[in-house]
């Protein structure tokens, strides 16, 4: 994994922050706004995971414990605040929740970070499963399977600031995300940040430099927990409900997977977070086959970009720096082949999913006007043919790989 500090982010994060802050102005649709909010939150969560994995080489299978803890802390405070009418602005809850989570992470982190590698991964897995199950078993605190809900518009309002309105909430989220990104970026360039990389690469050597590896790991862990807590709290505010699901192993899983897919550079978690929402909210809304696409996406993604999508972007950037990308005959035709192949593959998949419910859902409509009747053989044969042709083109125009310097 390429360590993030080798790529200058000095300009990147303020621009990103600016972009985020401008989005709601650009968008009318509440749906798009919702998506953007979720992306912001997801990015924050992935950033927190990045601190552990990208910087510390710690692969956590139970990170949802901390996002979840943040969510519940936030929700409980929100309810209390609504109940007792505390003069505490809701906008501050995420930070509070973050701090609370960090405190919580101290003992758990101490337990988890004593050893890196598999023991860490598996302890976090265990803690994750335990927390999830316990939350379900303790409805008094977790609200049982239908969870706790609250009203984010509660609490004192200052100067027309009304979190009830999506745009305002969005701004809150954007600020936190930008702030988190800046924080992580800075962290990667501090002494501790660098030593953390050292621990990641060779834990045996670090003590000989006067530092206690576990303490370094623990610091990273607590910092990550803080970010996770903040993002969890934002989820709570965005959804206005928290269920034990926030602890589910699937949450931890998707956090892990998409951050890894993003890659170990600071760009990774950003891409990962955006992609996570795009897939799990966007794609799953578009097609019943979204899981299949996700699975294939992971496989191809890793085969093509083993360093993660972030790595891919950086590589492209360097490629441009070195005289740019010359679309030679081969490259273009390869891309063409890929497009054809994947398009027809999508057609096939969609038809495969549709034909059992042909009567309910009728023919497959990929693009306006084009209707594929899943019961006539024609579209099947056609798209299969196209698919194979596409593959053949790709193969014929494949790059001369590997064995040359």
């Amino acid at each position: 994994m390429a360590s993030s500090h080798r790529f200058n982010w000095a300009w990147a994060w303020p621009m990103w922050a600016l972009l985020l802050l401008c989005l709601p102005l650009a968008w009318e649709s509440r749906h798009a706004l919702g998506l953007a909010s979720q992306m912001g939150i997801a990015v924050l969560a992935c950033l927190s995971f990045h601190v552990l994995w990208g910087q510390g080489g710690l692969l956590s299978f139970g990170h949802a414990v901390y996002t979840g803890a943040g969510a519940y802390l936030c929700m409980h405070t929100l309810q209390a605040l609504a109940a007792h009418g505390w003069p505490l602005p809701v906008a501050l809850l995420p930070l509070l929740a973050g701090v609370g989570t960090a405190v919580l992470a101290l003992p758990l982190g101490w337990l988890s970070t004593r050893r890196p590698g598999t023991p860490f991964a598996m302890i976090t897995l265990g803690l994750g499963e335990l927390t999830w199950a316990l939350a379900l078993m303790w409805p008094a605190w977790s609200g049982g399977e239908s969870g706790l809900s609250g009203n984010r518009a509660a609490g004192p309002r200052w100067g027309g600031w009304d979190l009830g309105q999506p745009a305002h909430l969005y701004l809150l989220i954007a600020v936190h995300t930008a702030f988190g990104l800046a924080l992580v970026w800075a962290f990667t360039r501090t002494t501790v940040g660098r030593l953390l990389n050292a621990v990641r690469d060779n834990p045996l050597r670090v003590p000989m430099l006067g530092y206690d590896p576990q303490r370094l790991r623990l610091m990273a862990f607590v910092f990550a927990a803080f970010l996770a807590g903040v993002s969890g709290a934002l989820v709570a505010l965005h959804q206005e409900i928290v269920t034990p699901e926030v602890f589910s192993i699937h949450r931890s899983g998707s956090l892990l997977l998409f951050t890894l897919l993003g890659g170990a550079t600071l760009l990774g978690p950003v891409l990962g977070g955006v992609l996570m929402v795009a897939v799990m909210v966007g794609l799953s809304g578009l097609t019943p086959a979204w899981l299949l696409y996700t699975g294939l996406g992971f496989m191809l993604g890793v085969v093509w970009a083993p360093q993660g999508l972030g790595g891919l972007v950086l590589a492209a950037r360097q490629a441009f720096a070195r005289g740019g990308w010359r679309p030679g005959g081969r490259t273009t035709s390869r891309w063409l082949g890929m497009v054809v192949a994947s398009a027809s593959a999508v057609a096939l998949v969609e038809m495969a999913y549709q034909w059992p419910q042909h009567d309910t859902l009728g023919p497959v409509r990929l693009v306006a006007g084009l209707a594929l009747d899943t019961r006539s053989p024609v579209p099947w044969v056609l798209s299969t043919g196209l698919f194979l042709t596409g593959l053949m083109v790709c193969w014929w125009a494949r790059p001369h790989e590997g064995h040359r310097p």
Partner: protein
Amino acid sequence: QHGQTVRIAFIDPLSGPMADVGRNSLQSWQFVAERQSGAKNPAGVRFVVAPFDNKGSPQESLNALKAAIDQGFRYVVQGNGSGVTHVLADAIARHNARRPDAPVLLLNYAATDPALTGERCTYWHFRIEADTTMKVAALVDFLAGHPELQKVYLVNQDYAHGQQLSRHFKEAVAERLPSVQVVGEELHPAFQLRDFKPQVQRLMASGAQAVVTGNWGEDFVYLVQALQDAKAQLPLFTYYAALPGAPQVLAKGGQSMPVYQVALHHNNPEGEMGRLAADFRRRYKTDFVVYATQTGIQMLGAAMARAGSTDTRRVADVLDGMTFPVLGGTATMRGEDHQLQLGQFISRWQPVDARYPVGAEGTGHTFAPLQYVDARVLSQPVRCNMPRP
């Protein structure tokens, strides 16, 4: 409002362990909506039902709800999972408070938790199926006629629906049928067990004479399999023995176990409902079991006709306390708690015969109606005082 299109968002599990039930419900809604669109409903509107998969999770349900609202849906139907219903009801109440101009209505077509029309009732939630207290009433009514069944064992899912069923069953027998005693009770995690052997072992050990379960979907299937493996013969009282997948399994046991079902549904309805069910089976190759969908569409049609509009606010006000025609009678949406007052069938699992020729899921067996328990019998006292806009 004539000629208008009413878009209804269907939010229920279309993937995961509850997917089969969800998909069947979706098909029912779409089928009924199509069948009653246009001239066939008093309001002359066109009903369209769009699916939103909530993967059975409250969180996802909220995402789905957000998406639906953003896409301009104002009518939401949901039922598979009382937990989810609670969440949606809360969220919708919040939303309607924030955007009073275009409120959202929630038609709950299956979720049975009484709290939905009790402690936690809201103005925007309408239940068009009997709640657990009513179904239990029907059960107790039936058990009263079977004095030989003294020892009852409860097996339920450990979430709102199952918990409430256990609780209210115990209350009801304690109150109205003291002769019956509950000799044991299981509350197992919902949709997580694959093997009910231990539960069944305890059940058999308890010397029970009858089992009552509200389990549905896979939890019902696996329970029955375990019972069959244990060669159990005691009668099984159920809510959801006709939902997709269940009859197949029951049929494997043949008649080894007497099975009863308390539901709006049985496999051999007469008249229009019969034709409807037949057409449905012809089209989807599966049974039409969610009758509440039919009731729901009829109710909306009637309400819109009366309101002379499809505007949710107006429709809600009309629904509040409205009595309207349903297949084979009338039903009333009680104003105080928005709980539909409608009777239930108690049906029995038996081989198809001349009188009841239609088998469940194409098996040689069917649910044949034993008795129709009238709404008046089922009706329960109001336990709700909702804030009204």
